[in-house]
């Protein structure tokens, strides 16, 4: 204990920090034509960070640092793996996209690496302060990145909205946390859990928890705190949108769940109904709004709101009915991992497709499969997977979600039925994209220039995502190990 530092346990974070510095230094020294080296460095650094992660995973040792505020256990490692791999895929998606804009490449990668670093810190945090720092490090750089396309009014709007609401939510979150500290005098989760064990009727605690849920709600864009998401998603550069909808959402999600799960298990009477409501509203409103979208990115924005609702279902259901939270945590983690893979794939398809069709309007994609059948197949794979159609990975996520709500309790059964109906509604709008691509006749012209071909790095991103989507779908055991990670938390990290 004490302040001894285990450098191996911190190695993934350190590698990312070094990569950030190298990227900045390269950006200063390289000529404009050679700037792509910053991208290569970022990609290589992210991949390199996976090596110590693998070693730590094989060691399987739980490392606790800074008086237990920073813990590297199986749970943290699984999440770090998720953040690094999805960050890696986002880099692959960014490469060509950013290069064609020709400005500030170095800063772009620096900021994105900083955000990834934040998510790595967040995964290990076991007290409110580290968690807060990690979480803000995730979102801070994204305020800038969302406005990257400076000439575009929409991108400016995206950044502005995200910034204002993001700061507001941060303030609310922090206020909630400070109340907790005021009540208990503790910042560490386990200590808070002990102190709040029999405090569930304390008004200040209720206020604190509700404030925190509102704050987290903004971060994961759960209904009714979702208004910024569609505009920001549409305006931001598409790789950043992908990152927002996967990494940053996952970070907020995990932060919320570990706070509730580890720090406030005794107060589940307060937060369980709130989460139940968030889940039901997010699924329903997200899906119903998605039905009316004509722009593919906005559609994915609402879809990701609805998916967040699905992800909340296991946890909310278990908490409301007083069932085993560990099971629910496992289901949510599996959902997160699978969602990350297929949603990144979907965004990669959007980038490639927008290049080919020159538009993000779904109508403009009509008949795409007729000119490019591989794009057609990829669209079908990712969108059907998001809809949860077997044998693609999405089915197992939905399956695990349904499995965890099968608790004989009226509130959970109601949630299960809401989820089942929503699964059908969701299918309709995912199918809308597939219908345009496969069933409709082409209305416009497609670019057939060589430039419209997806870049090699994007192809690699698509290949990784499609391989994982199909492999997990056919043999879900590959993803099921994630569930074990949730048990680590239960036994006390």
């Amino acid at each position, binding site marked *: 204990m004490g302040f001894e530092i285990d450098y191996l346990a911190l190695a993934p974070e350190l590698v990312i920090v070094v990569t950030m510095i190298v990227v900045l230094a390269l950006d200063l020294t390289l000529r404009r034509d050679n700037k792509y080296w910053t991208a290569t460095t970022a990609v290589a650094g992210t991949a390199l960070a996976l090596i110590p992660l693998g070693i730590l995973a094989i060691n399987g040792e739980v490392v606790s640092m800074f008086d237990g505020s920073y813990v590297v256990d199986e749970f943290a490692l699984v999440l770090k793996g998720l953040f690094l791999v999805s960050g890696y895929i986002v880099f692959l998606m960014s490469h060509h996209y950013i290069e064609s804009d020709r400005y500030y490449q170095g800063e772009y990668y620096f900021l994105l690496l900083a955000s990834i670093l934040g998510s790595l810190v967040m995964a290990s945090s076991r007290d409110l302060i580290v968690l807060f720092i990690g979480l803000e490090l995730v979102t801070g750089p994204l305020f800038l990145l969302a406005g990257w396309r400076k000439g575009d009014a929409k991108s400016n709007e995206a950044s502005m909205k995200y910034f204002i609401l993001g700061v507001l939510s941060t303030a609310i979150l922090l206020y909630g946390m400070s109340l907790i500290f005021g009540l208990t005098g503790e910042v560490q989760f386990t200590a808070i859990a002990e102190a709040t064990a029999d405090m569930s009727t304390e008004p200040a605690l209720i206020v604190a928890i509700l404030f925190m849920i509102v704050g987290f709600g903004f971060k994961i864009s759960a209904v009714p705190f979702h208004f910024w998401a569609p505009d920001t998603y549409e305006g931001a550069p598409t790789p950043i949108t992908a990152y927002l909808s996967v990494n940053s959402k996952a970070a907020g999600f995990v932060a919320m769940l570990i706070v509730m799960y580890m720090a406030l298990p005794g107060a589940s009477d307060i937060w369980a109904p709130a989460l139940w409501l968030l889940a039901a509203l997010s699924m329903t409103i997200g899906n119903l709004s998605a039905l009316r979208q004509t722009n593919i990115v906005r559609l994915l924005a609402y879809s990701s709101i609805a998916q967040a609702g699905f992800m909340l279902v296991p946890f909310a259901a278990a908490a409301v009915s007083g069932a085993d939270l560990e099971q629910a945590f496992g289901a949510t983690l599996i959902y997160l991992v699978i969602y990350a893979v297929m949603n990144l794939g979907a965004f990669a398809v959007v980038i490639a497709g927008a290049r080919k069709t020159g538009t993000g309007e779904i109508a403009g994609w009509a008949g795409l499969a007729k000119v490019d059948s591989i794009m057609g197949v990829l669209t079908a794979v990712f969108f059907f997977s998001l809809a949860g159609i077997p*044998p693609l990975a999405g089915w197992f996520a939905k399956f695990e979600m*349904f499995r965890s709500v099968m608790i*004989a309790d009226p509130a959970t059964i109601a949630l299960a039925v809401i989820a089942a109906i929503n699964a059908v509604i969701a*299918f*309709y709008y995912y199918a809308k994209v597939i219908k345009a691509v496969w069933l409709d006749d082409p209305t416009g012209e497609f670019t057939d220039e060589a430039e419209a071909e997806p870049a090699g790095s994007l192809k690699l991103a698509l290949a990784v995502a499609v391989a994982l989507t199909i492999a997990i779908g056919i*043999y879900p*055991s590959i993803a*099921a190990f994630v569930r074990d990670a949730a048990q680590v938390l239960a036994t006390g990290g």
Partner: protein
Amino acid sequence: MEWFETWGLTVTVFLPVLGALLLGFIKKDNEDALKRTALAITVLAFIASTVVVANFDFGGGTYNTYQFEVNETWIGAINANYHVGIDGISLPLLVLSTFVMVLAVIYSWNHWEEPKNPKAFLILMLILATGMNGTFVALDLVLFFIFFEIVLLPMYFMIGIWGDKSLRQVPGFSKPFETRLYASIKFFLFTLFGSAFMLLGFLALYFESGNLGDERTFDITQLTELGASGAFAGWSVAGWVFAAMFLGFAVKVPMFPLHTWLPDAHTAAPTVGSVLLAAILLKLGSYGFIRISLPILPEEAQVWAPWIAILAVIGIIYGSLACLAQTDMKRLIAFSSVGHMGFVMLGIATLTDIGINAAVIGMVAHGLITGLLFFLAGSMSHRYHTREMARLGGNIKLMPVIGGILAFTAMASLGLPGLAGFWGEFMSLVAAYNPLEGLSLGVFRTGMVLGAIGTVLTAGYMLWMLQRVNLGEPNPEWEGHDFHDADKFELTAWVPLIILIVVIGFYPKVIFDTTTDAVTSMVDMVFGGDSTTASISTTVKGG
């Protein structure tokens, strides 16, 4: 052959999807290679299924024992296994599936509907084959669910891409839709709605099996054992679980009032799509009732049986009346499926061995007959470019061979004794006279009478269709057209069906010999025996 004893079913199931992968590597414009490969794959799958038949031990054994069984861990974390096996009930359906698939490939040889693209069409057909074959052999609920759902994707694309392109006004929308778009999404949403609830039902069974002592399980054989021993009898939500699974299966069958996707999908689908839908996809639902609902929740089955019977009879009457109102030949055939599947469900609802035997032979017969009818309807509309019966007429003069086969198939469909369609209808009515002890005689005997009226109506609309399409003088608008009669690909696809319809009609023992042991021992096992058990053999020999 020891290798085949273990992996025979796996080969039958997965060969088609491997074939689909293989087709992916063949160039799009090399049509011959594509067709030959697809044909070779489907023939191999069919051969594999016949080898299964050849090595099948018809001596029986009791229900819930399967042959060619494989049980390997699949998703260890939730105790879901790759468990496949076959018994007398699923064997005829598996063979039907692989067999019709071969014919479908042969038929499509020179029948590509717009926008052609044989490569994509054949790939979808092969994926479909894997889903269908898999459903019939799956012995694990999760595996069953996966296969049950896999068929949706290819069928959605088949209807959506190659389907009917005429415009159609949909209530609630100002702009007219192309029929194919409307039908494909409707088909998908209905089925998905049902299967979402079916999955909830499966999960409930899984958890309850854990509460009953042992490990939680999705295994159909273990759940059947539990169900047959009455372990689920006192379970408070058993009724809901049965209802949830009912939704999933009933949409697929389809049962009234969940049938409305069927006429749209069948009519809009390209010919081969309609054939596969009618011949095999509908059977996935009724098979689910026999394999999962009845044995696992027998008490609930007895509670629900009268309601199922009522819905089945409504389906019979409603389907027949709807047929009488059709002007479109293909839509008429589609609606006739509602009626025929009504007989199948009536048979199942009696919960007797005669009834379930009737259901299985009814499924096989309906697959052969209605499959053939859709082939014929497709070929005719290919030539006339219309399916309006008012414009057809005198078909038998213009195309004697197609007209003759149509007359024959219509006779088979209306249940003419001596042809395959007779047994399913006749025996399910017989079974309805004497349902499982404890079921309301009033409901079932009324059902029998109404069902009998349904057979008359069936004969009515089939003969009416024949009269309008086949008889009379050809419509003057066809004067000067030189219609070519059935070509060799069409005949190659149809003649085997005709032969089987006659063979099963005259000698239904080929089916009953496979099914009776399994069905009888199932009824014995889960419904505690039944007074009609002994009479099955006399009924069969009597025919």
